[in-house]
């Protein structure tokens, strides 16, 4: 009897000790697994994860260019636009200044401005046309202010400027219109307003990226980013034709509004820049995809996934692009504020490739 009582007491003690041991183990596991800092992630399933990593991968066979020189540090905290002078000098607009560089990255001088420049272009006579948010300033060569043109109002957001022999064209993203001035700054006409009779659907510009250029065929090319296309207009405002289509694939323009910027090479092919999935591509004059200059993996550290990790304050911005007469492509990286130089390495033309 006494023996059984001792045995029962011993069993109870073992049971209690076991329970305490289990409780301690459970507590330790709970403490170790408990994530108060969120480092282990949200724990959400794959369907809740936003991933464009696969889309950002580009078949290496489609890449026709390679980076051929060290990047030029613009020393801007916020650069906005790039333009090349006819003789090849690189002009970069940023902060409240314009900086000049040669192709080796040597600093050739700076023009200090009162306001932040949005875009610029250089005429054949060396005059520099700089668009601020809502007005244009003209600088001579050597750089000294020559004229300040009329203010286009508080709604105006000027994003691109181009010159022809007698005209200056200014893209206004705020009013979704192109202003045509003569070289004295007198407004001649506006291009691109919605007009059913002229079959013009109007520009759709959801974000402040709205680019234009004068092509060698004498027509003005203007992006219509919300429609994913590039449109050709006469200087008088008649829509001649357009090309471009939405596609997440490399052959089209991805996202809600692309392309953001473009430049035209000597052979009339187009270099287009997209934001979101940052891609610089080549399209022939009819808009057929030719190849890639650089994709997200080449242009953004960490690739497209890194871009979508940015906070909204530093949204994936639109890169700008310029070309020189020998076909080199100058990409203004607005994340790192550097100019990256690409040279063609392959003469392949992928316009006959059929994409799924």
């Amino acid at each position, binding site marked *: 009897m006494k023996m059984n009582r001792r045995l029962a007491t011993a069993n109870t003690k073992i049971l209690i000790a076991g329970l305490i041991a289990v409780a301690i183990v459970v507590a330790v596991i709970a403490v170790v697994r408990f994530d108060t800092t969120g480092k282990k992630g*949200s724990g959400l399933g794959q369907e809740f994860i936003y991933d464009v990593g696969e889309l950002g991968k580009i078949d290496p066979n489609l890449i026709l260019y390679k980076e051929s020189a060290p990047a030029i540090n613009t020393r801007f905290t916020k650069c906005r636009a790039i333009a090349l002078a006819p003789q090849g000098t690189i002009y970069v607009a940023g902060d409240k200044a314009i900086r000049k560089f040669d192709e080796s990255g040597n600093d050739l001088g700076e023009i200090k401005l009162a306001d932040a420049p949005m875009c610029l272009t250089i005429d054949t006579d060396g005059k520099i046309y700089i668009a601020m948010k809502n007005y244009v300033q003209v600088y001579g060569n050597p750089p000294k202010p020559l004229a300040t043109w009329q203010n286009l109002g508080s709604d105006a957001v000027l994003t691109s400027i181009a010159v022809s022999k007698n005209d200056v064209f200014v893209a206004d993203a705020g009013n979704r219109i192109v202003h045509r001035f003569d070289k004295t700054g007198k407004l001649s006409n506006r291009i691109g307003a919605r007009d059913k009779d002229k079959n013009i659907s109007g520009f759709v510009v959801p974000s402040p990226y709205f680019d234009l250029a004068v092509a060698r065929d004498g027509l003005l090319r203007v992006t219509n980013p919300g429609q994913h296309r590039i449109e050709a207009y006469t200087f008088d405002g008649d829509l001649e034709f357009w090309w471009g289509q939405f596609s997440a694939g490399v052959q089209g323009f991805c996202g809600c509004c692309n392309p953001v910027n473009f430049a035209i090479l000597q052979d009339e092919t187009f270099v287009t820049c997209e934001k979101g999935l940052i891609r610089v591509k080549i399209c022939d004059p009819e808009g057929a995809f030719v190849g890639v200059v650089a994709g997200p993996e080449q242009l953004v550290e960490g690739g497209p996934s890194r871009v979508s990790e940015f906070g909204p304050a530093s949204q994936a911005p639109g890169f700008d692009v310029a070309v020189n007469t020998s076909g080199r492509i100058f990409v203004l990286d607005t994340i790192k504020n550097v100019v990256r130089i690409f040279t063609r390495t392959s003469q392949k033309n992928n316009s006959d490739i059929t994409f799924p």
Partner: protein
Amino acid sequence: MSKHSEQTPGRRQILIAALRYGALGLLGATGGAAVFARKKNNTQNTVWQIDPEICIACGNCATYCVLEESAVKCMHAYAVCGYCRICFGFFGPEPADINEGAENQLCPTGAIKRSFVEDPYYEYTIDESLCMGCGKCVKGCSTFGNGALYLQVRHDRCLNCNECSIAAACPSGAFKRVPADKPYLLKRVDHV
């Protein structure tokens, strides 16, 4: 005897010491109470909110809230929105077609409604009863678009915990206390 009387404090000395320490204790207690009351008052006059300029839409808001359904919801800054036909906050990165079919939508819970305004513009509205604050649409919109979609703590749901578990788990430090009379950090229109 006299030596003993020097070492042993008298009744008066004990009383003075007791009064002195008592006064010190009272002072400390009053100070502590004041600090506590101030802190409590601060907590009552402030609420938790997400700074949309810092938020990276990591998804933690959906799972770290003590509520079964998170107090964090997606909000839409209409003034910032481009009313795009192809909104990447609404459509997945590779939509099979540009229509409202469930297979084309980005939101796993179908919480965003797309309605036609005029060609080529569409309006997008959030159904908060379906939104769980995962931030997937926020990422799509801020990666490709203007960042019109963003996350905010909805104060009709938030319990305003003293130690918010989402704030502790927020990797970007976007959670902050804001004055209760200005409880939302709304996105600004200036997009340039």
